[in-house]
């Protein structure tokens, strides 16, 4: 009964997303129209003759009307087929598959670090009498979103990578070459990503913990002899985490942007680096594919979080 209602809700939300997802793909695809001149000139170089350009355009369907091009691209994309990179001639799906893992790993480590610090910190800030003055916490939160990650990346590479040599000063070591070297290559960018949202989430959690702890059912729980620790960590935290979850959803976008910049600074072969490389090489099909993927990912993550929200909060049922 509940599951089917939730299932219906998810299906409804997915259906509502279809126009947005179509729009995302259309916007990503139309990048090709923004490029000055013909996209293929970058493949053939400036010296290519008009005839060669036309021939290649025909081969790539680029002589078709825009929407014909779009729909055939979309039809392929729906089957996971994004065509070939103009530059490397490697199937784009393959390129993305190689790069996705790095970005996902980076993001997951970052979220885990954020939560591992934010949850105890937020709970402590809400329960301990002796806490940092509010404006200090707020300043840290503002600093978190105000320090450009590509700058802190450079500075920390200098400090921790070059001066102290605790971590790799950039570059990627795959896990096949050992866990420790691998971690040394990803831990610093992951920590920087985590820091961006750490204070934001801590502050949100603290505020909602304070709110929940002042509610009646906590005092009622005490009057039933339930231990303080259980009331804080089980009763209050579960309630306080629900509004915090939406903030985490909002920060996913900040994290993705951060990943793009940090992969560039740290030379990590992730999706962000693929995007930036495609920009430099003017590899429009790769640009289209990566942008589509990021847009869809972001939209779906937020749907996922909304669904998680309604599963955690029994008061919301659809």
């Amino acid at each position, binding site marked *: 009964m509940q599951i089917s209602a939730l299932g219906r809700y998810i299906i409804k939300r997915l259906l509502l997303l279809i*126009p*947005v997802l179509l*729009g*995302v793909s*259309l*916007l*990503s695809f139309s*990048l*090709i129209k*923004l*490029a*000055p001149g013909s996209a293929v000139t970058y493949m053939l170089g400036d010296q290519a003759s008009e005839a060669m350009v036309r021939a290649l355009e025909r081969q790539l369907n680029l002589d078709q009307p825009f929407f014909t091009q779009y729909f055939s691209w979309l039809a392929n994309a729906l089957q996971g087929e994004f065509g070939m990179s103009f530059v490397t001639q490697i199937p784009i799906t393959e390129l993305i598959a190689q790069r996705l893992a790095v970005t996902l790993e980076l993001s997951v480590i970052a979220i885990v670090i954020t939560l591992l610090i934010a949850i105890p910190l937020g709970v402590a800030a809400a329960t301990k009498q002796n806490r940092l003055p509010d*404006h200090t916490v*707020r*300043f840290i939160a*503002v*600093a978190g*979103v*105000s*320090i*450009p990650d*590509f*700058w*802190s990346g*450079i*500075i920390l*590479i*200098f400090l921790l990578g*070059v001066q102290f040599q605790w971590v790799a*000063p950039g570059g990627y070591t795959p896990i096949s070459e050992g866990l420790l070297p691998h971690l040394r290559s990803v831990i610093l960018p992951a920590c920087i990503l985590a820091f961006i949202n750490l204070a934001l989430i801590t502050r949100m959690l603290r*505020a*909602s913990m*304070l*709110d929940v702890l002042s509610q009646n059912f906590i005092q009622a729980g005490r009057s039933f002899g339930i231990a303080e620790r259980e009331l804080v960590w089980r009763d209050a935290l579960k309630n306080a985490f629900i509004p915090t979850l939406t903030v985490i959803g909002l920060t996913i*976008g*900040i994290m*993705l*942007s951060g990943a*793009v*910049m940090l992969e*560039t*600074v740290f030379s990590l072969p992730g999706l962000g680096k693929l*995007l*930036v490389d*495609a*920009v*430099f090489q*003017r590899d*429009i099909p790769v*640009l289209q594919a*990566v*942008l589509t993927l*990021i*847009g*869809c990912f*972001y*939209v779906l993550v937020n749907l996922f979080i909304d669904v998680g929200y309604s599963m955690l909060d029994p008061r919301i049922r659809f």
Partner: protein
Amino acid sequence: MAHMTTPDPALTTDKFGTLDDESRPEHTGFLAGALRRFRRNTLAMVGLLLVILLIGTAIFAPMLTTHDPNAIAIADRLTGPSATYWFGTDNLGRDIFSRVIVSARVTVTVGFGMVTLAMVVGLPLGAVAGLYGGSWIDEVIMRSCDVFIAFPTVILAIAIMGAVGTQPIDIGPFTIGNVAKVIVVGGIVLAPRFARVVRSSVLKERPMDYVEAARSVGASDKFVLVHEILPNSIVPIVIQASYYFATAVLTEAALSFLGIGVQPPQPSWGQMLSQSQAYIFGGDWWFSVFPGLAIFFAMVGFNLLGDGLRDALDPRGAR
């Protein structure tokens, strides 16, 4: 949370609670209260100070520089901060202090440009969507905005700038330089977000009694929107604009850092950081530190200003 703030008599207005036509947010009582709250807020004042400092630097940049920001002095390349070169020199021996100072100009120009464009495009879109909330017009506008909002700002800006390229575009007698392109791209990216904020605050105002009253005496939709709803929904719009300045500064810096934003010889903070990156391994820290600090302080300024405005103008939404 709202209940933590002490209720202020100036705020028990139609905007924030009960319907009381006597005291609308634009009345002096509200503004005076907001101003008082803002001035008492240390962090907000710090934010305001930083923003004024940034704008002042941008305006008076030529008077503040100690060297020609583009003067190359290979003999003095990569020297640390000194009495001559306050922030040291870069890989071509240019004075980093002067370059940081003149870059404030491009930052402020791009910031104002992006936010203005975002407002010019986003405000009418959001206002119309809100006014016709629930209708097909609203649906079309907001779903289109959702498409743009589905991408993180910086990523969408990178992709569009990447596709457009850094070559100047000639349109008739005009040449669209890169600064203008960055402004247009940032404006396009921010406008839908802005529209969403405007729409939700218009939607909030629409069912208010004074709007009903204006309608009942025959005011047109346009009149109601321009004279009644927008002045009352200005608060969230102003707050959001301040945050978007921070986003604009970051977007410009990120684009320039990647080499697809402001192009040399025009210096910018992001571009300087990008140039400095290779030299950090040699220990030439000042090259990276000072442009980064400049971005940081500009962002802190706008973020604190935004927080301060929010706390002062909309205490219920604070914290």
